[in-house]
């Protein structure tokens, strides 16, 4: 019997095979959205737990990885909504020691401006602009048309520009 069919029928071995095959990919996707390795591990576990619980609803017309990524994206955005703004500042990787005080200040202002975007805009901008994921890939994960993601990126860029200008930085 096909692996996905066995998974759908509740076969734990089939689920384990799928888990091992896709856990790295799902984690990588989530960590690029939330930028916190600890939270990304928890969200990866939660994603697969939900996949396991809703396996009966799995639709063969979609690839397993696309389904997993859709669930992972929703969970990552919910996590960003719930997360406290200050905490996110602490989670950013440390500034390189070679940075001058001015560069550091600019970097912090950009991060500050970025955090003012809504979770959906932040997640989209992180994936498209920072991680350079394709519009098609991001659109599929959000369950939106490519045009909607382009609009979202444009809105994020415009809002960011306004916020940066307010903070005295001209992009």
């Amino acid at each position: 019997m096909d692996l996905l069919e066995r998974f759908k029928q509740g076969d734990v071995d089939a689920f384990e095979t799928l888990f091992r095959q896709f856990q790295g990919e799902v984690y990588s996707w989530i960590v690029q959205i939330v930028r916190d390795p600890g939270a990304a591990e928890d969200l990866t576990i939660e994603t697969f737990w939900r996949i396991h619980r809703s396996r009966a609803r799995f639709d063969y017309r979609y690839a397993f990885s696309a389904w997993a990524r859709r669930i992972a994206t929703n969970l990552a955005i919910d996590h960003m909504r719930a997360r406290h703004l200050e905490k996110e500042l602490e989670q950013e990787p440390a500034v390189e020691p070679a940075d001058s005080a001015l560069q550091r200040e600019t970097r912090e202002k950009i991060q500050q401006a970025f955090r003012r975007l809504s979770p959906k805009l932040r997640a989209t901008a992180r994936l498209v602009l920072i991680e350079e994921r394709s519009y098609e890939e991001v659109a599929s994960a959000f369950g939106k048309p490519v045009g909607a993601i382009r609009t979202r990126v444009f809105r994020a860029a415009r809002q960011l520009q306004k916020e940066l200008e307010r903070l005295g930085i001209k992009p």
Partner: protein
Amino acid sequence: MKREDDHIEKVKRLLQSAFPPMDSQLRRDLWPEILKRMTAAPIAVPWYDWVLIAVPWYDWALIALLTGWVVVVPESILQLLYQF
């Protein structure tokens, strides 16, 4: 369009300078965590799900039809009971 793309490109460079690349490699196997959950919480299916799974759609249709009939013609209750 070209101006918009240039603008997005500028913002992209700015963001990439402010957000250093993340290590996106998973460093440990997470399967044991899933196993823990599976043993700790067997899947709870609510009773109404069981009812929906156990009763086929045509039985639900029949129930709806009979309920409608009883509401419209209440005196038919005795006839229906006799049939059952």
